[in-house]
């Protein structure tokens, strides 16, 4: 570890101090060093969206963010959304609407879907598709995913 750096960040609410090489991207740090394997690596070039996590509450690609750049930041993976009310609604809706088959893209889908629900509460199906276009799924055909997000948006509107 020629250029090792010690960083301190928050991972799913827990303070973590670790020594990392600057070249270690955040997804590998989460998977290999924190053993948080829900974050999936598809393309490793920021295109597929499988590795989408939250940095300070905002969705980001963990494969093109280096762990060393997250000093002092708060990182949340799907494991950290267990008690999140929107994520809970989405998990149920994804099951009801058949929003996944193999599940590889699902962690990234849930993180992006949560962002759509919170940031775009008025989204219609077309807007959902546009907002979710940075997350690729290769088996559902997206219909179930879009329906799941619509179901959550409708439920939240009805509850207002």
């Amino acid at each position, binding site marked *: 570890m020629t250029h090792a750096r010690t960083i301190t960040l928050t991972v799913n609410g827990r303070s973590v101090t670790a020594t990392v090489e600057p070249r270690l991207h955040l997804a590998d740090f989460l998977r290999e060093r924190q053993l948080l394997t829900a974050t999936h690596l598809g393309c490793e070039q*920021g295109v597929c969206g499988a590795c989408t996590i939250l940095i300070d509450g905002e969705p980001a690609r963990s494969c093109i963010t280096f762990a060393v*750049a997250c000093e002092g930041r708060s990182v949340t993976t799907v494991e950290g959304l267990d008690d999140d009310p929107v994520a809970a609604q989405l998990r149920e809706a994804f099951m009801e609407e058949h929003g996944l088959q193999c599940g590889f893209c699902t962690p990234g889908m849930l993180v992006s879907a949560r962002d759509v629900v919170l940031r775009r509460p008025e989204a219609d199906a077309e807007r959902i598709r546009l907002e979710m276009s940075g997350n690729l799924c290769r088996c559902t055909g997206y219909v179930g995913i879009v329906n799941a997000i619509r179901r959550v948006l409708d439920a939240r509107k009805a509850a207002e």
Partner: protein
Amino acid sequence: MKAIDFDYARPETVEEALELLDRGDIAARPVAGAQSLGPMLNLRLAQPDLLVDITGIAELRGIRIDGDAIAIGACVTHATLEDGRYNDATRGVLPGVAGGIAYRAVRNRGTIGGSLAHADPAADWVATLTALGAEVVVAGRGGRRSVPVADFVLGVFETDLQPGEIIVEIRVPALSERARWGYYKVCRKAGEFSHATGAVLVDPARGVRRAVIAAASGRPIVIEDAEVIQGGGCRPERIAGILADTPLAGNAFEINTHTVALKRAIAQVTA
């Protein structure tokens, strides 16, 4: 694939950053959101010895009104520009364009200065800032200089940035009340890089009539031909002439695609 072994520094002032980048013995590169450089590192298309992360420099993260321009720090993210929680002297142009860049997860990290320094011909800011007549403020150890974006982007991934220099600010002239803006990009999939971009700004109060063809395998092409800008002259024959000095010359498909992109941008202005 994984990036090669590189060193990393996160300075807190522009001066510190410039000092770190002023190294003749190693390859040092500035980085902000890493949304273009990150993939290049993972693919090993970029193999620097040192990354100088400039996102810790407070001066580069602000947006302010300065005279008749909006001055945007190099490290302001696309998402910040999209959300519009600032005094937008462009009357909606910046949020509109920012919201169409890639995907939200990318917009949360990617920066306006990084996009311009990367100079992908298909990038939204390359086309937009050229059409808006923006200037880029560049800092080097010898001081600061200001360059029109139209002169800053020299070609595919090629800019006027000299070794050791970084972009600190982008200055966009305020649009007048009756200014009209049109912007269209041809994408087969939402969020992908544009295949052809047309941008038009008509701001009579400031005497500005400007169209831009971008994503044309080179630097953006500025058009001041009134007949093209008002729409009647935006035909493949005329666009073929405009693209004659580009790698797209003689390619009927590309010429038509760029004509359509520009025509649709013009339609937004004349509507």
